């Protein structure tokens, strides 16, 4: 019975899900479904892509579903200001089309226009090169309101084959290095130079964001990663009047000593350590490097400890929603997955740690690359569930919302909250 229900949910159309959840904005359901299924840009849509006006793909540390690296639209904006962060997807996987209709870009499904979209605007600094001659867009990148820095494009969990099963960071690093000449490790002074240039553009950025692969080395594990972040953030911080500035870092789950250093020695205001999947057994299977070096329970404990340093509503964790259902070890039904994931998220929320999700995009070159993600119904229930936990425990999500990230349908729902 449960399997039959799960199959039905998988087959639900966008319209079915919109009708089933009238309390969830249609735009957020559309966004989630586009993230779930990906997009295919028609030739007409690509003809209006202008690299002087729009952001094109290039610097992201994760790859596209079709495995290609050529310049295409980085992502899309909906008319409520929400981003759809998605990647080009082969037509045989049934993505939404992005097409040009009467001079405007539209998401199209089964021949029907679904919603108007826009390409992300390019920031001014994308046209510039750094003092060492590197295109600045290869050092920092942008979301509609966020300045991204990916200082280290390798993850040392891969050294002994323990990279996460859904992750293509190393594959993408090789492509980026060979095809785009993106440095694998950024020079902190050069990052500072690019950030300084980016901040000249009025109204363009409301947060600085930093993430990279894990670096296990150091006097204590991950000390080198922390040192590197501190060095980068130090260069960024030179451009601000106050010590603290709106910023987020997604890093490894650091120790209290390491977190205190990050908080006290830099301008960092929020902290994220992605646990990826909220179940100990599945964490061990899908994140063997994180399991080997830290472990599921210790990861959670460190997240909770981070709240003492950064404050409630300034610490969260991210999950790659859908991998908890991946075969052969995943939960058997979406109902079971939802119940178990939300119970773990509530355990964290009750201790001041928020949870956000991204829709899992199975990518080529990863062990799970040939699997399907979950149903739209599942993702909407998960978004509602995580949002409701945020309400129940009064956890703000301002540092990881639609303006500062745009990749989390659950935090989109929290836009209506007064905190």
């Amino acid at each position, binding site marked *: 019975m449960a399997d039959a229900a799960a199959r039905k949910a998988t087959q639900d159309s966008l319209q079915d899900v919109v009708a089933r959840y009238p309390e969830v904005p249609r735009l957020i359901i559309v966004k989630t479904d586009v993230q779930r299924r990906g997009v295919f840009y028609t030739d007409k849509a690509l003809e209006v892509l202008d690299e002087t006006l729009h952001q094109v793909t290039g610097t992201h540390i994760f790859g596209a579903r079709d495995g290609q690296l050529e310049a295409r639209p980085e992502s899309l904006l909906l008319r*409520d200001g929400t981003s759809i962060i998605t990647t080009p997807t082969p037509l045989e996987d049934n993505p939404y089309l992005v097409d040009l209709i009467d001079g405007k870009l539209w998401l199209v499904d089964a021949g029907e226009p679904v919603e108007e979209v826009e390409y992300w605007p390019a920031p001014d600094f994308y046209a510039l090169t750094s003092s060492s001659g590197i295109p600045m867009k290869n050092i920092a990148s942008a979301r509609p309101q966020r300045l991204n820095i990916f200082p280290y494009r390798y993850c040392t969990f891969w050294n002994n084959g323990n990279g996460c099963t859904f992750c293509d960071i190393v594959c993408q690093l090789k492509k980026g290095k060979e095809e785009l000449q993106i440095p694998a490790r950024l020079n902190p002074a050069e990052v500072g130079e690019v950030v300084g240039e980016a901040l000249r553009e009025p109204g363009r950025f409301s947060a600085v964001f930093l993430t990279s692969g894990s670096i296990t080395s150091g006097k204590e594990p991950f000390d080198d990663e922390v040192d590197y972040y501190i060095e980068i953030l130090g260069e960024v911080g030179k451009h601000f009047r106050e010590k603290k500035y709106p910023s987020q870092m997604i890093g490894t789950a650091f120790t209290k000593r390491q977190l205190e250093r990050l908080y006290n020695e830099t301008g960092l205001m929020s902290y994220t350590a992605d646990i990826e999947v909220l179940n100990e057994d599945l964490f061990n299977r899908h994140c063997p490097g994180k399991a080997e070096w830290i472990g599921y329970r210790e990861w959670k404990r460190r997240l909770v400890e981070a709240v003492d340093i950064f404050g409630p509503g300034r610490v969260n964790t991210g999950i790659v929603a859908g991998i908890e259902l991946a075969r052969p070890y995943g939960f058997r039904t979406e109902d079971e997955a939802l119940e178990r994931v939300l119970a773990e998220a509530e355990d964290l929320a009750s201790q001041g740690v928020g949870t956000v999700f991204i829709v899992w995009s199975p990518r080529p070159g990863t062990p799970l690359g040939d699997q399907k993600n979950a149903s739209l119904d599942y993702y909407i229930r998960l978004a509602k569930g995580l949002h409701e936990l945020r309400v129940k425990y009064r956890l703000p999500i301002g540092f990881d919302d639609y303006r500062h990230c745009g990749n989390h349908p659950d935090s989109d729902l929290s836009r209506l909250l007064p905190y």
Partner: protein
Amino acid sequence: MSTLNAEILHLLEDPTTTKVVATTDEFGIPYAITSTFLQASAAGELVHLELLEKSATNRNLLRSLWFDKKVSVSLLATDGRSFVIQGKPVRALISGPVFRGHYEKVRALLDADLAAVWLIEPEEVVNETFVQRKAEEEERFPFSVHLDRLTVERCNSASR
């Protein structure tokens, strides 16, 4: 979308016009604020500059956009002319050249931020200028008038 006529466009451009944006919350409770920067776009939309991300108005505008609810905009000129415009928020700009242009104008005038540029499509324009509405009302609803207003003029007589 209703077209804003020249008179309304003029009122929107006039800095002495009082401009009010009224929205409703999830319970239907109204919330009205003055919108100092309210203006018309080249495409004929009303443009409300929302300076605060978590303001009740910003959240109500988003709710209206998400759930297809109307908002109301009122204009009151110093000479008494008044219009109410009902419409729907159709777009929130948070990035791009239009957003930047408004951001720079706000920053030139105030030490403030800009959360979103809201585009509101007008659907209906009602002339609420009192002298005009009064004439219409008295014409259409003659039984609503208090009789003492209709009596012949008399000199004040001695008290009874």
